[in-house]
């Protein structure tokens, strides 16, 4: 589904990704771990098309297409979804209106009929139940006045509605207490299936107790230095990242 080859990216004059390789297949959940500043969030943003990053070398193929040439909205319409680490508050735009506009843009792109308000609201109701989000939040302004947990749940709610093929979860666990984390993880697990791939970016192993990945990669200084199975997360938790700095970069998967 996703193939990243020798990806180099920079913000302003700073090189953040320095030759990253990664392959993700449909149905797989990959975890990207690494210390602060290793480039985890930058990878998530580059894949979603956030302006401000310059890709200086390498390529990203998404379902056989050049992902890097696509606008952010086209990526979303093709099935890429980024759950933000810091979801944005948008005062004056209701969650429901925003999501209906997004869903219909995606449906239109895929040749499906647009949903009217009634059909959309019944879909929203159903998905709100799946990800355990209070229905009242659907009608409120996007993320405005939401608690940290509500914002993260709202990201997963959006993911449930938009039904992406490839979801990137950027530090979805940050700022959540253990109860909120479990709710969010349950929502994410409900959305796992054989067709959908996920890239879970996290600093801590904790989240991976609840969202068990198929593969774990360690990102350091803009490259993947080690890849392994889910048990590697525990090893990292016990030993930290420092011991990896001495190891030669290992090819990803």
């Amino acid at each position, binding site marked *: 589904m996703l193939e990243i080859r020798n990806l180099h990216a920079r913000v302003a004059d700073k090189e953040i990704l320095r030759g990253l390789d990664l392959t993700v297949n449909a149905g797989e959940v990959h975890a990207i771990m690494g210390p602060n500043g290793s480039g985890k969030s930058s990878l998530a943003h580059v894949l*979603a098309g956030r302006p401000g990053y310059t890709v200086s070398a390498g390529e990203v193929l998404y379902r056989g297409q050049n992902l890097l040439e696509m606008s952010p909205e086209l*990526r*979303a319409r093709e099935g890429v979804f980024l759950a933000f680490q810091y979801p944005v508050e*948008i005062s*004056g735009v209701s969650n429901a209106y925003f999501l209906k*506009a997004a869903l219909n*843009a*995606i449906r239109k792109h895929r040749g499906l009929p647009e949903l009217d308000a009634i059909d959309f609201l019944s879909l929203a109701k159903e998905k709100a139940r799946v990800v355990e989000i209070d229905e009242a939040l659907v009608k409120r302004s996007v993320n405005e006045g939401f608690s940290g947990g509500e914002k993260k749940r709202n990201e997963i709610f959006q993911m449930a509605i938009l039904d992406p093929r490839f979801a990137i979860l950027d530090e979805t666990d940050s700022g959540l207490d253990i109860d909120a984390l479990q709710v969010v993880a349950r929502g994410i697990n409900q959305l796992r299936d054989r067709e959908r791939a996920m890239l879970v970016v996290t600093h801590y192993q904790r989240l991976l107790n609840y969202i068990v990945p198929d593969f774990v990669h360690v990102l350091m200084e803009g490259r993947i230095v080690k890849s392994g199975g889910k048990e590697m997360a525990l090893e990292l938790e016990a030993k930290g990242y420092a011991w990896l700095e001495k190891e030669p970069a290992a090819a990803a998967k």
Partner: protein
Amino acid sequence: MSPVAEEKDVLRAEFERFTQELARADAPWLRELRTAAFTRFSERGFPTTRDEQWRETNVAKLARTLFVRPDATAEITPEALRRLGVVDLGGPEVVFVNGRFAAELSRTGGTAGVTVRRLRDVLESEPGTLEAQLARLASDQRNPFVALNTAFFEDGVVIEIASGTQAPQPVQIAWLSTSPGSKPTVCYPRSLILARRGSQATLVESYVGPSAAVYLTNAVSEALLEDGARLTHIKLQCEGLAAFHVATLAAQQGRDSVFTSHHFALGSALARTDIDQRFDGEGGECQLLGLFVGRGEQLLDTHSRIDHAKPRCLSRELYKGIVDGRSRGVFNGLVTVRKDAQKTDAQQSNKNLLLSREALVHSTPQLEILADDVKCKHGSTTGQLDPVALFYLRSRGIGEAQAKGLLTWAFASELVGRVPVAALRAALETQLSSLLPGGPRTQA
């Protein structure tokens, strides 16, 4: 002789003709008032950009244009009135077409305690009544356009909300310009609002006109709020895009009164609104809320003055501007706290959104504090759409143009949302969605 001097001579001749014809039946006090006002105007002339209050707003083109009084009343159907954007609010409605009262379009009677009368009727039937009230609040010393209005107004409205009355529906005054004939026309709307003790009312003033015609609206509204009165004033400035609109709204507040002004400046090539508020008793509250949306070459200017002349009053001001194309916005807000106005609580905020590189906003929030035990703050921000929010919307599949429209609407919607009349909120939403780029509505 300079062109401006010629202009003044033309206006002097016009004033002499006016006093001998249309205003010949005026009571002596009104004649004196008009003459004094015209003299003040003559002494000063039209403002120039050398005047501190008019630094950003050049009215030279207006001053050079020879405006005539429209000579014929245009036939307007009720449907045409609605099509032009005057929303039926169900309550009393006074319609003026080219400055002339349109009886067939108006509804004035029917609500106990709410008296809506033509200014001309009051001046003719009770010539002494208004002597103590008219032209008391709007200063023709400060603003030459107020002087011109006082000199030249023909008609208008007097609205009185009786003591203790709660007006059940908003009272609407609609000023329509049709600009008949080939010459630029002028009208001088004049409103006097008397909110008696403990009364409660909402007043809507709508200004509409055809999009291509050059005309001038020079309006003055004076609102007196007696002790405990609550008055909400909503101004919809939706003039045609070639029009000039200059207006003053003056409000004086008695003890414990509450005045709220909602101001939407959407039309006109050049629009200038002055809001002059004054607390004349303790414990009053004042809210000034405004939104201007400029496109093309429009210049939209609001100057507000909030005068904390008495202790223990509260004022809140929020003005937002959206400017696109090569349009310009001006916000100048002065909050004065006088020496004895202790326990004043004042907040002022101006936020502007620039949608193009050529658009510009001059923002001048000012606090002038002479008392020491007060809570005052003010702020001003001008910027573009938040790129992070824009990316957030796009990352969900929403196209760039639609995302920009949504964020722009979101910026404006705060002020629309605070309008207490549902029918007006809906109308504003529709109107703004046609003005803002890609601006869809937010209701799902």
